[in-house]
């Protein structure tokens, strides 16, 4: 296998990993603040639909990406109002948002089925992008890929190097104590949920603007749920989200190649692999951690109502 073939494979792996990285990082921040948002899939698919629609109407990929993030943000605001504002059950509310998001995305996207757009432009640095072996991998990706990796660094820095990040983690670990210190528990949680939703929407718009690039109903195909599993798999650490998503992207690309090469296995079996792999990853993770106890934020999934 030549150097360039390896590079091509790595490029596709990173492309498949990017939507997972972006969505999982957003969810990670929300969960670090103690909110389990199961609506990621719905926010993602809405981001894909609205992002594509906006990009087609304006002709601008940037506007599309912003619209996608906005769609996720809007749904997240509903979710935040329910779970943070009204202390509704987080699991059920998340499911409701996923169902709502799938329906809304179908409504928004109905007029855009079958349309195609140029994929998001790739970076081109004269000289550097042509370096054999690494040029395309390092200097020839689209903006989403760099944004995803930058987001990982940013989230990591925010959570462990800033005061606000410390407060956010404290809210997720012990909301009563944080409240007693006079810190705004519900405000922090609401903002974290909004951030998570915007990331999910952005990740969805990546699918319809760069990955495919077209809109098809329910095109996220469970990627939002896989992003949720990745957060657990990464034990709530941004660096491990990137590593896990890359592994996962690798598995996806492998499966696509196997399907194309028609190696005699039924296509359905290969399509089921990502889902089976997710379950296996979660099982192995918990087997490896029998003694260590859970690394989840202590207040994850518990609602908080301040009263005196």
């Amino acid at each position, binding site marked *: 296998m030549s150097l360039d073939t390896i590079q091509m494979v790595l490029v596709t792996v990173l492309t498949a990993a990017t939507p997972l990285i972006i969505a999982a990082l957003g969810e990670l921040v929300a969960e670090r603040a103690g909110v389990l948002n199961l609506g990621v899939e719905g926010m993602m698919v809405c981001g894909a639909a609205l992002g594509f629609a906006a990009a087609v109407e304006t002709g601008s990929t940037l506007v599309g990406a912003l619209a996608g993030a906005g769609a996720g943000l809007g749904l997240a605001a509903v979710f935040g109002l329910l779970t943070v504002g009204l202390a*509704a059950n987080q699991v059920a509310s998340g499911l*409701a948002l996923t169902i709502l998001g799938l329906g809304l*995305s179908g409504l928004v996207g109905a007029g855009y089925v079958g349309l195609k757009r140029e994929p998001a432009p790739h970076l081109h640095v004269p000289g550097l992008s042509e370096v054999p072996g690494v040029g395309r991998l390092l200097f020839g990706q689209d903006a989403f890929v760099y944004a995803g990796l930058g987001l990982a660094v940013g989230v990591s820095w925010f959570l462990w190097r800033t005061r606000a990040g410390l407060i956010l983690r404290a809210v997720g670990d012990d909301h009563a104590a944080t409240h007693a210190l006079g810190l705004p528990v519900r405000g922090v949680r609401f903002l974290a949920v909004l951030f998570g939703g915007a990331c999910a929407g952005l990740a969805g718009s990546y699918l319809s603007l760069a990955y495919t690039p077209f809109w098809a109903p329910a095109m996220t195909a469970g990627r939002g749920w896989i992003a949720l599993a990745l957060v657990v798999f990464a034990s709530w650490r941004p660096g491990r989200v990137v590593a896990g998503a890359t592994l996962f992207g690798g598995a996806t690309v492998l499966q696509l190649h196997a399907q194309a090469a028609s190696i005699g296995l039924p296509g359905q079996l290969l399509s*089921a692999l990502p889902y089976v792999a997710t379950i296996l990853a979660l099982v192995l993770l918990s087997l490896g951690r029998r003694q260590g106890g859970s690394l989840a934020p202590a207040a994850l999934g518990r609602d908080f109502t301040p009263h005196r």
Partner: protein
Amino acid sequence: MRLDLVPRARRSPLAASLSPVLAFVTAVLIGGVAVSLLGVSPGAAFAVYFVAPLSELWSLQEIALKAAPLALIATGLAFCYRANLWNIGAEGQFVVGGLAGGWVAVATHGDAGFTVWILPAMLVAGTLAGIAYAMIPALLRARLGVSEILTSLMLVYVAELLLDYMARGPLRDPAGFNFPQSVAFDEAARLPYLMEGETLHAGVLVALVATVLATLVLGRSLFGFATRVVGASPRAARFAGFSEARLTLAAFAISGGAAGLAGIVEVAGRIGQLQPTISPGYGFTAIIVAFLGRLSPLGILIAALVIAVTTIGGEAAQIDLRLPLDLTRAFQGLLLCLVLGADVLTRFRVRLVSGATR
């Protein structure tokens, strides 16, 4: 401005029964606005969605046929959700149940020796397959602490792909001109019709029996009590000696079995053969039904009928008013949001106070 939630000393029974109604009315109002934005008169849409389905015999039967699997699945899910266990993979258990039961029918196709036993065998096979499939997330949760939310959902995709493979591959009708479907089941492998020449089949009775059984078990048995205690306060449940692991397995077995049974009832009743897809998302819609019915069997039965009416109405609206089918799904998602939001009224008194958010 700040929203203050003052806990009630006890759940208000009035608010508890009124909050789903309030949520439904609000959802209908918002739906009316959405419909008029799509250029259709809300009055006409209301008539198509909620009045027309109730005015003819065939559509009434359709409502019952759609409500039966929803009620059956949601009743099973109520056991899980009451115990704070999140089985969201009922869709997968439904599919696996239909597949296993349908397999029995295909395997005995054309064999006169099995006629009396074939239908019971199918129903048992479907139920057992649903239970077995639900045991995967249940065991992983009880033994290893793996989140049942994610595993049960991932298994939905696996089940759908498995059915797709079986219907196009091993179980396909060899004489079926390559259509991706199995042989049409024998008469003995079909659920009997309740009325001559109509579509209503015996599956709706299964759902009614399940409602009665679940009401008795949840309200009148120690197991039903333990379910509620584990959900409300795991610590108290431990002190009372209720095993959380055993309860997890039992609740998943009930919901998986109910979903599997619903799956084979759908296959042996309405469809009559195996196809690559057998469910229009019953397993997910049932989650809405379970919460709309406030996790009580009787409430679930009513909620299943309401959701079935909107689904039939949605299909009619697609034809008559050219309103997209996704509108129905969005409406159902919105309804669940509102139900959950309105639930706050039963637990808290809501006050608007001036001042900063805390």
